[in-house]
């Protein structure tokens, strides 16, 4: 029997762009894409981060669970705090989104789940990794680019680094995270897996004027 490997919702799209496939952290990943840090990369890049871990913690006492299990002061709504290899974003007072690198620290997840279960209130943790596409766009024209797809104000004042908004992007509901990398303006778009390919294609079309270039996911 073949080894059970996970595929990103953009598997086929990236397979066409790249030169081959290889296994990383249990995921089939396209190879041959340029690196986002390559000096030759133009002003706008797009990368598939769907393999990144995505956890949802929901419940009135969710902030208590975060404080207890992660020893963090929960962020204000719309903002985030770093934690280990990821960040914890507050989407509502009772809803937190946790973004991690592809290999979620299982001990940490267990601890979080156990703390949630022990909590007197109803707190539910759900691993959404398989059900969400995650697309990162990076470059100095990110704001103009995203403004073609979404009505939010992506300026520094309205959308500082580390902030999160759930909004309509290209007529679909997406969670947008500002997550600058290496002093480069960068946003992450998280949405339903079934819409991932559509969102990717729409972004590539919208980014045509800036020669948007698919790159390797940095964590790869």
């Amino acid at each position: 029997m073949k080894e059970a490997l996970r595929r990103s919702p953009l598997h086929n799209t990236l397979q066409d762009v790249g030169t081959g496939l290889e296994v990383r952290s249990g995921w089939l990943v396209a190879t041959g894409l340029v690196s986002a840090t390559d000096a030759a990369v133009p002003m706008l890049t797009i990368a598939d981060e769907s393999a990144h871990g995505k956890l949802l913690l929901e419940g009135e006492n969710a902030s208590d669970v975060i404080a207890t299990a992660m020893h963090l002061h929960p962020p204000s709504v719309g903002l985030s705090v770093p934690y280990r290899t990821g960040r914890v974003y507050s989407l509502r007072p009772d809803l937190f989104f946790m973004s991690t690198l592809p290999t979620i620290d299982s001990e940490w997840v267990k601890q979080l789940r156990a703390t949630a279960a022990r909590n007197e209130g109803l707190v539910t943790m759900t691993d959404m990794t398989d059900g969400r596409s995650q697309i990162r766009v990076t470059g100095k024209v990110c704001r103009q680019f995203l403004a073609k797809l979404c009505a939010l104000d992506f300026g520094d004042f309205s959308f500082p680094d580390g902030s999160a908004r759930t909004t309509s992007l290209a007529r679909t509901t997406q969670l947008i995270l500002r997550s600058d990398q290496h002093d480069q303006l960068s946003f992450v778009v998280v949405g339903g897996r079934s819409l991932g390919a559509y969102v990717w294609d729409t972004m590539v079309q919208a980014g045509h004027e800036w020669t948007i270039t698919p790159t390797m996911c940095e964590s790869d």
Partner: protein
Amino acid sequence: MSNTLLFVIVIGATLMLVIGGAVTIAITLYRANRLIVSEVVLPHLEKVMGARLPSQPVELINRKEEMRFTFEGNEYSAFKGDTIASALAASGIKIFSRSFKYHRPRGLLCCSGHCPNCLVQIGDEPNVRACRQRVAPDMIVKPQNVTPTLMWDLLAPIMRFLSPFMPVGFYYKTLYRPKWIWKVAEPLLRAAGGLGKASHSESPEDTFDKQYLHGDVVVIGGGPTGISAALSAAGSDAKVLLIDENDQLGGYLRIKAEAKDVVDELCASVYAHPNIQTLTETTVTGCYDHNWLAATHGDRLYKIRADKVVLATGVVERPLVFDNNDLPGVMLGSAAQYLLHLYAVRPGRRAVVVTANDDGWDVAADLHAAGIEVVALADERERAACSSAKMESLEAELPVFWRHIVTSAHGNTAVNAATIAPLESDGSLTTRRTRLECDLLLVSIGWTPNTGLAYQAGVEFGYDEDRAELMARNMPDDFIIAGRAAGTHMLEHQITEGALAGRRMASAAGYGDAPTTSEWTFVQEEKKREVTRSSQRTIVKGSSKRFLCYCEDVTDKDLTTAVAEGYDSIELLKRYSTISMGPCQGKMCSMNAVHLCAHANTSTVDETGSTTTRPPMTPISLGALAGQNMEPVRITPIHDWHLGQGAKMMVAGLWLRPEHYGNPTEEVRAVRERVGVIDVSTLGKYKLTGPHVPNILEKVYTNRWRQLAVGRVRYGVMCNAEGIVIDDGVTARFDEREWYMTTTSGGAGAIYEWIQWWMQSGWGDGVQLINRSDDFAAFNLAGPKARTLLKELTDIQLDNKEFPYMHVRSGVVAEVPCRLLRIGFTGELSYEIHCPASYGQHLWEQLLQAGEQFGIMPFGVEAQRVLRLEKGHLIIGQDTDALSNPIAANLEWAVKLEKDDFLGQRSLLRVVENGLKQRLIGFKVNETGPTPEEGLQIVSINSNSKQRKIIGWVSSCRFSPTLNQVIGLCWLPTEIADVDGAEFIIWREERALTAHVHHGAFYDSNGAQLRS
């Protein structure tokens, strides 16, 4: 005597005839000569010699880069930076278009993108303004609305003949009886009148898109006032968007060589300012509630959220209405200046300038300096009322006619002369006329503030009789008008007012201090002292056609008649005559129409008011409104595999699903005889957690849930409060606190929101609902070999005893963590396997690989429809509609009316109390032949009258390969539906098909296969 007298008379008559004939011939020759010289020779001379002037200080063209393009099939040259209009004008072209209705020749009028006179077709894009569009190499430009050419338009003489019979609104009065006349006339009218031709096909070159922009202060207009406002607001730290419709900032200063350094300096400051984003060649076309602005830039539509707005859109030069005022060669003074200064094009050789302000003198001076002969400068004003050094020096060099106005332009296809007349002291025309030979007649008699956006923002205007201009009466707090649009014509006042307006709006947006009242009052007082720039005169009466509206060919006579007919309010007049409803959107005609209406009603302009300007202010392409094609499509994790196998895909809501893989009948047989697998990842999938999940389930489902044991699955129907079926599905209980609900694919999103709504309305205590529809791939493995196949891939106990029908298990299948629900929509032994979506394709491929030995086939939606129909299962939304309750839909077994409470309970109790009139029931078609289509009517036929009465409809129907018969579900009156075997008639293509009622499932009616 009589012979002598007769002789004298004959001789006299002969002499008179000879002399008369000679005079007639002389006049004819003279006219022909003049016509030939002015309308043939001169333009030809321009073509040969060119009308391009030597280099001008502020010209936009790059003479080092020359390119070719074609207009009406002829090749022309242009410099980089040339517009189509400037390039053609430089080649001596006078006629740019034919008018909308009468096909009269039209030439350049405004050269600023407002009037309709230079609309051309470029490729598949109609109605492009030649005065705005830059020439591109090898561009193919065509004229619009010509039959067959611009010069020789056959419709022109026909329309000239018909014009007396075609006054404004003639079709309302004539083409309504007999009724068929409009059907005949409409295509003819549409063919005769019109603009360009839009393409009906999608062009790969289309790059339409939209972009959202945000600004603390949005400044509309990049003239001196706008620049000043932008710099001032940005200086207060506000984020500023500066928008201008031209490709360069500077506004009217762009044509002034003496202001070049100032403009360059201002532009440099703007571009260097980090708080200012500048958008040139961008036209704001609408201002909506809360300063939501729409703007276009080529193929792009900007949607702008402006906190505050400074409107500095300046003014539009107002045409004068006189005889033949639409002849090519009649231009606005500013248009000639644009051609002269920006494109170094001589607009004519002999010019008459008609003015009522100092701006006209500037025009005359510019022409004179460019070597164009100014035949006359006719100024409406008294000599005594005007004085300036510039005026005095110009008066010494040019023939100036004080207190004169133009009465007529002459020529066939272009101006060859103009007539001017002196004015009486009361402003009326004297009888004296002076005819002046010329090929250019420039009119500069006043300005109309460009205030359309201000109207949309809620600004109210009043008419200032002294200044002959509209002035704002009130303004919203978040919107301000400044500069020429606010009646400020002097440059220093514009800059001051702009700066104050910028500060004021920035302050209102929370940045910096607002100007003091004294600062504001000072500039308002100063501008009141400015000289008047506009004339009260709008129309000079005569004997030929005088056009107010160039877009729709509306004359002053048309409007006067309309007012006399009772359309005496300006809004009615607009709707009846279509004035101001063409491509210029009233910029050329609105003020003149208001004046005419006021005069005709013997009221004031202020009392008459003005028409409501609505967006879009300028024409906007449908492509720009549509933007980038964004139609979300949802695909399952196995989508690409389906495509690879040649599946025929179908659209189901937002989803793309395989309808079949080539042979749906064979797919059905595979499931019935061996094993098949279908991708049902599209199902709605929700996780419900918490101690009180049964409570919410009891409310939203019609059946009982409290007692459902861990490890069990139950089917449920959902109704709305009216008792109408809205969805169905199964829900599994994994443990005491965690449940897993599935819904129909189409209902996934709506049902999630619906349950959330009820949870937040008081039923959600102790429950959390999480939409996991995209998290799991789901496959239904169905058929007698399903269990045997599955055993190859999992250690989960699958025997009937360990894992019976309507139970759920968790475990590993093909190394993938899965949930297995033993349910049976197809009527066979089947397992619905849910796994993390990322593993979907792996698991799918493993199932197919392991199933090869059992003859597995993937099956699509079509086979599934047949299979479920054989089992008698309904599909919500197909077999039910917005009136179907579960009792009538044959689902009464899933409705527990005796429960405490559930959505729809009260309505369903009433249904039971009143009894059913129709119900959903199975049927078989007796005859062989075509399968009745879904939606066909079921009828009863009166044996005597042969009248048909509709008594029901077919909701599902398929040929069953298993039964070798056509079967279906239909809605029938209960008296028929209740009788097993009762006959009824399906009406198909004017023919009766006999069918009979079937009770129960068509296949495996006792469920033995399902439970095996």
